[in-house]
């Protein structure tokens, strides 16, 4: 009996190890270490921007070292930097639902000019409460967030056109439109639930975003997207699933049909119709938040209108291309001619030809309609199929040398194949189950190639165990040769989905080091220590506070009373790179402030008890950083302690007291 048990365990073990990809031990090349080694003091070759998934933020890594350089707060509050806690940044997280402290950040796209990354901005989507953010790559700060109305689950976003004319936002969940009565039975999905795709225009100079128009589409799930380029510039491609229009147990009910669709959008055409005034204005409500670098403050306004084009009313804006089994990634090769669909449950990868799509449209080679939209014949649009590539294809990127690289979630590998002859050239296991992958510039007209990074969904045994929760694993591959070579693993923050990478030299030269004091237009700036003061306005107290190595001015404040609201407006007078000052006060319920050189930041504080409250600098700034402190006295309501403030005036008594 015992023997039997032993035997079955052994068999089980064998079976398990058989399923699991081989250990990396033998997959690593001898010179891998030297390829990822960046000597102390040396810079990395590339910046890698990685979505944070449920962390809501964006992290920045150096490639090839995999060193974490920064976490940019975007959709989630970040007490470390005061993001969402300082008075200036709170409006950035405002929505039509009020202030929201968290979101689920999935995809990133770098701004492009002529189909190449230009290093100006990085766009990020919020999946849960639909929004799109623009991050300024001069400051690595979020400078604009726009909410998307008529949307739920902003997943196919924020992909951009090749001159950053538009950022798109396609809804994952179809829902009743915002200005329709939403109080309907869920079972009326087919009648009442609709999908939308928003085209957000980006002002060429300052990047200001505006919802230019929305396309109204049949109820289904919109998943991912990528813009056309070159010959297909002017078109956008969206993958869809749940063409079954299921509203329950999608796992089964949305996986019934043999094919779903890739939606091809002629956005130039849609743009024309909008210019002709053919869009319909709809009353909606959505927040539009902007950060102003000269006032160091954000504002949030509520927009109340959007222009909608119902695609049913136009015969030439959108077309459906059948694509096997719940497509996920839809990726366009650098030439703009080939569109790769990845059916999550398909055993092949269809590659569509833009030229054939155009011909099929011209020839009206249609196979009926879906929700009023012409469906192209699969064969008329198809260039060819990659046969038996692996299990569970998700996403594809390109190296610019005629090759495509696709991640396979179920078979846990990356497969390299040739775009022209669709032959498989190489396959390499990942550890484990990759979702997205990123080749620097891999979705642009000019991929940088050289590296590929896989963002794996499962970590298991890759790092020292840290309890049940593990950091997710990114894996860096060298793709400069015929065969992919695994170079290193590095842990990532939250759950990375899509990522982007860009040669460092495109950003380094523009990186801001300080904010110029002379340009500081904050309404509560303190221009020099001489102007520091405390002002009472009713029950509001404004403290004009300066920070300089290594003291605050003023650092002794009296006359605050219970019932007062105190605003500490901290101006950092430093003008040297990498000298932020922090600010904290005991009992503050928001967070610290981290104030950059030349910047003004405000912490609101409502004292809840009479007493003495210490303030101090939280960022080690000099040898006398521990001396950078002060006191605030809080008196009872109705007390007659007047407002007073000082710096450097010490009392006379203490020595004699100490000597007693």
């Amino acid at each position, binding site marked *: 009996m015992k023997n039997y048990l032993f035997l079955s365990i052994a068999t089980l073990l064998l079976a398990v190890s058989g399923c699991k990809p081989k250990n990396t031990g033998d997959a690593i090349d001898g010179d891998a270490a030297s390829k990822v080694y960046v000597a102390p003091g040396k810079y990395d070759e590339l910046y890698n921007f990685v979505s944070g998934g449920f962390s809501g933020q964006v992290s920045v890594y150096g490639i090839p070292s995999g060193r974490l350089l920064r976490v940019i707060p975007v959709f989630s509050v970040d007490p470390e930097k005061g993001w969402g806690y300082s008075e200036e940044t709170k409006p950035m997280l405002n929505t039509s639902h009020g202030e929201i402290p968290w979101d689920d950040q999935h995809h990133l796209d770098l701004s492009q000019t002529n189909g190449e990354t230009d290093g100006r901005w990085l766009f990020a989507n919020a999946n849960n409460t639909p929004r799109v953010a623009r991050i300024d790559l001069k400051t690595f700060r979020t400078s604009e967030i726009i909410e998307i109305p008529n949307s739920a689950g902003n997943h196919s976003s924020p992909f951009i056109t090749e001159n950053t004319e538009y950022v798109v936002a396609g809804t994952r969940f179809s829902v009743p439109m915002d200005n329709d009565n939403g109080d309907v039975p869920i079972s009326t999905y087919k009648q009442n639930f609709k999908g939308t795709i928003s085209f957000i225009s980006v002002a060429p100079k300052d990047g200001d975003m505006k919802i230019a128009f929305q396309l109204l589409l049949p109820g289904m799930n919109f998943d991912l997207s990528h813009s056309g380029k070159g010959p297909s510039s002017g078109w956008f491609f969206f993958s869809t699933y749940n063409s079954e229009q299921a509203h329950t147990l999608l796992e089964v009910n949305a996986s019934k049909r043999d094919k779903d669709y890739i939606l091809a959008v002629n956005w130039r055409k849609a743009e024309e119709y909008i210019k002709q005034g053919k869009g319909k204005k709809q009353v909606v409500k959505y927040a539009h938040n902007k950060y102003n670098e000269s006032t160091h403050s954000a504002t949030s306004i509520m927009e109340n209108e959007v222009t909608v084009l119902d695609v049913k009313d136009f015969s030439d804006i959108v077309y459906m291309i059948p694509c096997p089994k719940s497509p996920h990634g839809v990726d366009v090769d650098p030439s703009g001619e080939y569109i790769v669909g990845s059916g999550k449950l398909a055993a092949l990868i269809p590659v569509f030809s833009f030229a054939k799509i155009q011909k099929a449209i011209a020839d009206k080679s249609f196979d009926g309609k879906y929700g009023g939209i012409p469906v192209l014949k699969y064969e008329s649009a198809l260039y060819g199929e990659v046969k038996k590539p692996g299990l569970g294809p998700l996403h594809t990127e390109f190296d610019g040398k005629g090759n495509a690289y696709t991640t396979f979630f179920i078979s846990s590998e990356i497969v390299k194949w040739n775009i022209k002859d669709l032959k498989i050239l190489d396959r390499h296991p990942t550890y484990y189950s990759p979702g997205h992958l990123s080749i620097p510039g891999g979705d642009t007209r000019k991929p940088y190639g050289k590296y590929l990074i896989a963002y794996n969904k499962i970590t298991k045994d890759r790092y020292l165990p840290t309890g049940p929760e593990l950091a997710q694993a990114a894996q860096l591959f060298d793709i400069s040769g015929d065969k992919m070579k695994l170079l290193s693993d590095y842990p990532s923050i939250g759950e990375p989905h899509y990522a982007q990478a860009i040669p460092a030299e495109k950003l380094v030269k523009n990186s801001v080091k300080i904010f110029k004091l002379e340009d500081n237009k904050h309404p509560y700036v303190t221009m*020099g220590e001489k102007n520091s003061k405390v002002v009472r306005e009713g029950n509001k107290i404004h403290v004009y506070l300066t920070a300089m190595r290594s003291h605050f001015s003023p650092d002794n404040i009296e006359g605050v009373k219970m019932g007062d609201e105190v605003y500490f407006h901290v101006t950092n007078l430093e*003008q040297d790179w990498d000298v932020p000052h922090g600010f904290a006060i005991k009992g503050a319920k928001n967070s610290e402030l981290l104030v950059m050189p030349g910047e003004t930041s405000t912490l609101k504080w409502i004292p809840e008890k009479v007493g003495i409250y210490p303030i101090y600098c939280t960022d080690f700034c000099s*040898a006398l950083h521990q001396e950078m402190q002060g006191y605030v006295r809080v008196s009872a309501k109705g007390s007659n302690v007047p407002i007073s403030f000082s710096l450097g005036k010490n009392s006379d008594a203490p020595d004699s007291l100490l000597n007693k």
Partner: protein
Amino acid sequence: MKKLTIICSLALVLAACGGSNQDNASTSGASSTEAVPVNDSKPAYDPNRGEGKFHDVKLAAKLDGKMALNGEKIADLKCTSCHKLTDEKLVGPGWKGVTTRHKPEWIMNFITNTDAMIDKDPKAQAMLELCMVRMPNQNLSDQDARSLVEFMRKNDGLK
């Protein structure tokens, strides 16, 4: 011999750079004809001038009142958090008498090329040992630096 050649060419390069910077320093009042000696093979550190883009700052006998006022504004914004106008030390030394202790070139180099001078200049290093805070670079323009010197002169009683 080879080594000497390299040092000499280095000196030349350095001198050439210094010369062109001096031209850019439009407010220094220096004329480019009085540039650095190019044949000096040993670029010794000049403790009176310090190190930086300013070589020969010509000061007028009388105060430029407008410039001094501008200097005072800059001082209030960027300097007086740490420096008193008296001879009393706050974070850094008081400014009283600074124009008699240092040549204008030294002051202007120190306040625009702060890190390099703290690492090299004997007087700056001695001061660091007293104050224990490295003076920050406050990102001053050439004009700012010149105006500050004028304000310091006013503070030292020049009319």
